[in-house]
């Protein structure tokens, strides 16, 4: 393969990985604080629909991204009130959030369906962004650079700041953190809101750079892949980056398999479509083999906490 083939392949791969990476980074912080929010897919859809709506009415992509983050955070607030303040079951509430997001965006988004949305072009000037070789580094939408910056930011926050230490501690033992005097519920609210905002921005990637329009169920299950990725990455931001790009690779292979012939014809296209899921299973098996049963999951993941007593 030469660069004329490889560069477009990588560019597609990176773009395809970005929404998963953004949403998974948000969920990683949420889970590190001990909350399991299965509503990622719903929050991504809300973000995607909001982005399309704001773009079609104002045309300002940054306003659209900001609105998507706010809309995602608002959906997450609903989840937080139910699970953190009212101690509702996190799994059920998260699933409900995804169902709500799917239905609500289909309903509210109907007027925008199918209308072409102006995309958010590359961050760097065309001389760099359109260079046949250098576009592999400079040819992306600002959302891609944002996602990479967030990997570093989330890692730095969790592993190098005191606030990050407190957040991890709360996910590790909520009762201990409470008895030392940390605001368990408050920190979890902030984490869940951050997760919602990140899922919203992840959703914004679809109309702004992947599929320049709004359609029902536009995110096509990427929220679920983001959730699996967090486990896959053993709750580590850098592994999340690697994992997201591996999934991006597999999804890009699927696209190439559908559109081009040649070597891809060896296997039927269904094989390429199933590949990301087969890979998930394989990697999960490998991870559990190498760690011999012990997991690095936050010890309080998914457990409700009530400060009484």
């Amino acid at each position, binding site marked *: 393969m030469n660069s004329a083939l490889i560069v477009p392949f990588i560019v597609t791969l990176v773009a395809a990985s970005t929404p998963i990476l953004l949403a998974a980074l948000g969920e990683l912080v949420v889970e590190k604080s001990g909350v399991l929010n299965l509503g990622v897919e719903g929050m991504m859809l809300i973000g995607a629909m909001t982005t399309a709506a704001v773009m079609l009415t104002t045309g300002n992509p940054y306003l659209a991204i900001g609105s998507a983050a706010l809309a995602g955070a608002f959906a997450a607030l609903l989840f937080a009130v139910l699970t953190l303040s009212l101690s509702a079951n996190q799994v059920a509430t998260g699933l409900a959030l995804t169902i709500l997001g799917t239905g609500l965006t289909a309903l509210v988004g109907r007027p925008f369906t199918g209308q072409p949305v102006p995309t958010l072009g590359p961050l760097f000037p065309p001389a760099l962004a359109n260079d046949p070789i250098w576009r592999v580094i400079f040819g992306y939408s600002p959302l891609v650079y944002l996602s990479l910056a967030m990997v570093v930011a989330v890692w730095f926050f969790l592993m190098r700041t*005191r606030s990050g*230490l*407190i957040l*991890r*501690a709360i996910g*590790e*033992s909520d*009762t*201990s*953190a409470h*008895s*030392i*005097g*940390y605001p368990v519920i408050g920190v979890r609210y902030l984490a869940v809101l951050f997760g919602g905002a990140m899922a919203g921005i992840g959703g914004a990637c679809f109309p702004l750079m992947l599929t320049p329009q709004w359609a029902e169920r536009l995110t096509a299950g990427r929220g679920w892949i983001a959730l699996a990725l967090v486990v896959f990455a053993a709750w580590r931001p850098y592994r999340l980056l690697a994992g997201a790009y591996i999934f991006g690779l597999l999804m890009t292979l699927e696209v190439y398999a559908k559109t081009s012939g040649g070597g891809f014809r060896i296997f039927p296209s269904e094989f390429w479509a199933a590949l990301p899921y087969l890979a998930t299973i394989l990697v999960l098996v490998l991870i559990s083999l190498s760690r011999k049963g012990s997991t*690095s999951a936050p*010890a309080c993941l998914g457990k409700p906490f009530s400060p009484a007593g």
Partner: protein
Amino acid sequence: MSIDAPVRLALKGITKRFPGVLANDDVSFSVRAGEIHALLGENGAGKSTLVKMIYGIMQPDAGTIAWNGEIVTIANPKAARRLGIGMVFQHFSLFDAMTVLENIALGLDAKLTQRELEAKVRAVMSQYGLVLDPHRVVATLSVGERQRIEIVRALLLDPQLLIMDEPTSVLTPQEVEALFAVLRRLSAEGRSILYISHKLHEIRALCHTATILRGGKLVATLDPRVETPRSMAEKMIGASLKDISKDPNRRFGKERLLVSGLTTLAEDEFGVAIDSASFAVRAGEILGIAGVAGNGQNALLDALSGEILGTHGDAVRLDGTPIGLMGTTARRRLGLCAVPEERNGHAAVGDFSLSDNSVLTARDRLKMVLAGLINSGAAKTYTGKVIAQFAVKALGPHSTAGSLSGGNLQKYIMGREILQNPSVLVVSQPTWGVDAGAAAAIHQALVDLAAAGSAIVVISQDLDELLALSDTLLVINGGRLSKPLDVGAVSIEEIGLLMGGVHGTEDEVHIAPGGQIAVPA
């Protein structure tokens, strides 16, 4: 501490009500600078609630707290730490997956860089002789080491009052001695200590003053050094303490449990394996197994109960039947019941009702399962009987095991096994964390079970308990058992040497007054 030292903490009329319970009722006492003040009481007497209010975890409904003469409101633990109040919890507030240093950083309000913090931590550790590696992950540390983290964390705040909630209930005798040395040093520096414990020997040896609570009310404030453990225990329970009554003419029958050449593999790199243990327990006999924690007691219990299988069937015989290769269910069916040390999660399932927990161990012996269906009526009746006979404070057979306090859960578990009338009962730490009144009841129940012809093995780290209870004593160290010792004839020095032999020291073992054994560390 001098008598005219200034009053550091003064509680006046503290009252705290929970739904259905008056946890503290008009409690008033004061702690002076440099005083080691014991807070005594049975389970549920209101000690923990009281200190939670002093540390700002809860707020009193009525009454005042004065700190250095000024009335204060302690809104949260942070406010308590700002005043100079530190606390070491009974259930450590540690984060297992994090390092020692990260754990300490979480307990401090000051913002320090990691390097500054490490320097401070090392300084405090060397000042008080608390040895720890700051970069170890907590999950790999022993219980004593974990407690040291809590103490270092509290000391870094330079506290004027240190609250310790049952600090010795999980420590070995050596660790207790080391802890006392640290506490006496803190007292000499003018720091006050509020010390909650069940262990009356320790309170006599350590504390200057003791405040006794019963049912939320203050019943006495006294000088423990002039009291006896018995007099204090009687004030705690509000009744005279019964001695264990044993028939002095008791005779032992045939051998019911025969262990010969029992050997196990170490469960992990930190585990201790049992190395060809051989002993016999006769009908009516109580065999005590003494030893410092972590010398193979858990492996021995698991090998006897059937959680670990022996290498050959003859390794364990019950009434002549080889059971070494049988699992727990088969052994229970034949009459061998066991109580492991860890009650919540091993001896009982916290989220299950007491009734369901009864089904888990008594289903075969008491026919609670017929054709695969649970006879819940039988389970409920049996559980009700356990609750009544062992005075378990629970709402009824339907309450979950996890909702019981540690001492009450222990009473339930002991009752559940004893009332199954086993041929052989193996128990580990039968009265760990149980108050004096309940401990006496459990001891009597074990003696009565033996008198009815059962053979009993008691594994315990509490030497007083073993000396009072058992007829024969074995000492375990490094997974090896000593020769049988006759409790009536053996000297405490001999037991101490066998226990101390664990660490292979040539040093002499010191016997403190009151039968406490201290091995130089």
